[in-house]
């Protein structure tokens, strides 16, 4: 009943060996412990939820394949975020080639270096974000939980309540901006 049986089968098929169940369990727990950070790094580059899902999946595969080489004396979080950052940058480069527009390498590098330099500040902002989230009206919290960031869910959520999807989408955006303003206010007070 292993949760990643198919991954192990896949690795066997590739002839690249496999993790023992204990290794696999440890791996999944380490990844789960830094998913928030990983998601923040990836979303910081790609923005859209579906793109972020693609990059996160790609990152997980890279982490899984490279876990043998991971040095346990180093921070797993830092290792995972570096791989996530590289995967996101590769994703944007490939997409730029296909679409003909996108971020240039110097902009991607700048995003990566500011992200790294502001790590502690980001942690603090994240704490304030959670405080702000708790202060949202219940209805807004329910809407965020119900459908934030997923176009299909927004449609379903709106349909169930007899609302136009555009109204819900617009409300979610306002909530996001209100939260940002709240975090900024709290950070101002903090600083």
């Amino acid at each position: 009943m292993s949760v990643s049986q198919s991954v192990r089968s896949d690795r066997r098929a590739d002839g690249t060996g496999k993790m023992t169940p204990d290794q696999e369990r440890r791996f999944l727990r380490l990844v789960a412990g830094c998913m928030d950070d990983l998601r923040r790094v990836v979303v910081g580059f790609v923005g859209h939820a579906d793109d972020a899902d693609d990059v996160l999946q790609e990152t997980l595969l890279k982490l899984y394949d490279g876990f043998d080489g991971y040095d346990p004396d180093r921070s797993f979080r830092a290792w995972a975020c570096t791989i996530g950052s590289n995967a996101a940058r590769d994703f944007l480069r490939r997409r730029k080639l296909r679409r003909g527009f996108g971020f240039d390498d110097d902009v991607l590098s700048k995003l990566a270096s500011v992200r790294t330099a502001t790590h502690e500040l980001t942690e603090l902002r994240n704490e304030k974000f959670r405080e702000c989230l708790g202060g949202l009206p219940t209805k807004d919290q329910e809407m965020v939980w119900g459908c934030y960031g997923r176009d299909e869910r927004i449609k379903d959520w709106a349909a169930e309540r007899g609302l136009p999807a555009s109204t819900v989408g617009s409300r979610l955006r306002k909530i996001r901006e209100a939260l940002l303003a709240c975090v900024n206010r709290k950070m101002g007070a903090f600083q």
Partner: protein
Amino acid sequence: MSERSERAREIYQLAAEMCSGTLGPESNERLQNLLRSDVAAVQDYLEYLDVHAGLLGLAEADTPPAVGRLLNRAVVERHRPERAEWFGPRVFAAGAAAVVAACVVVAFVFRAEPVAPSAGSVIAVAAGTAFEGDAVEIEDVVRVGDVLALTKGFLSIEIGPGATLDVVAPAKVRVLSDRAVWLGRGLIAAAVGPAGHGFEVRTDDAVIVDLGTRFQVHKDESYGTQLRVTEGKVLATLKDDDGRDVKRLELLAGQSSRLDRVTASADKIDTLFDFDAAYATVSAAKGDVRKFSGAAKPLSGEIVGLDLRVSGLDTRGYAYVIPEARGVVFDEAVTLATLTGEVTVPAGLAIDSYLVHFDNEQSKAFEENGYGRLAFGSDVVAVIGSDEALAATDPRFGSPGTRYETRPSRGTEADDDISVVGDGRSVKFDLRVDARFRFDEFRVLVVGAP
């Protein structure tokens, strides 16, 4: 409006387009120019996207099994011949993805072994639970045909629409469908909601059909099948060797029965099996926690007189959830220091307490954070995490005889993330530890029965 805030507003607008996937070539160029202008612009941009990422993360479980499922999906994606984006703009991506997914499904039909349908999932595995054969982890999917064979401890599964089963060792259970299980030996306690009406527990002796209820079934070789109804009613049918109905009994709350195929007997009589004693430890260990996720685990066995000082009860990377005082009522309103500020508990409100205990000091597993989620059966009133507040609430909410840590750093720190989520009855936590100290505790107070 200052130049800085005007620029920030423009960056937010463009970041919003990035989030919705509608950023066009011109906007992309403008955004790049702004990001090149100075570091503050990049910070504004990342701060906007961090809020977006935080909101996206709310709906994600971020538990090991959830990561495992994401990884499995990634493997399927890896084998896709082409990515949806090759087909053009995002508006066509859903259709293209459906075609690709259909191809993957067809390929699996011909190439892969059939996967048994899912019947439910594991929602609790007590600490120390041992298995005969495949071990089961929290949040594992339970499939039709799966056998759960426990030699020690207990687990809980959510099965079909609205049934929850506690399986208590030593026990062997086979999942027959999302509406039926077979009990080979041991004890099952079933709680079936309205949607699960008709849920069946089968044994070699009988078929027990839920008619909207809570009931317990015990099976052993010596005494056949013993049944006790604690709420609602059930229909129990004794079977013969050929599976034909021999006798039917309708049992109401408080009634019990013994059904034995060998002696062809089925009577509403007191059971020989002591259900109260056998189930007491499960009931005490779970309290009113309806669902455990991630690292959260109930204890199995005695939960009195615990030593919860550092290294007294090593949780080996898990977070043990320990029910404490129940039905605490204050004569006057009391103000508590919680993780989100002061909370006043009104006089007369009954409170149940749960301590979440994470102690990785002895096992020293590097960077094993404790993260997970708990769903309670009633509203969360307060979450207490500071050293001082924990110590101050030990006398009233702690368990008599339990030894609590008194040194500093017992509670949560700023980088630990604990929040009340969803409908106000769930608590999500991420206890971050480092190589210096791997110990954290917090206390959850929920509305209880007086």
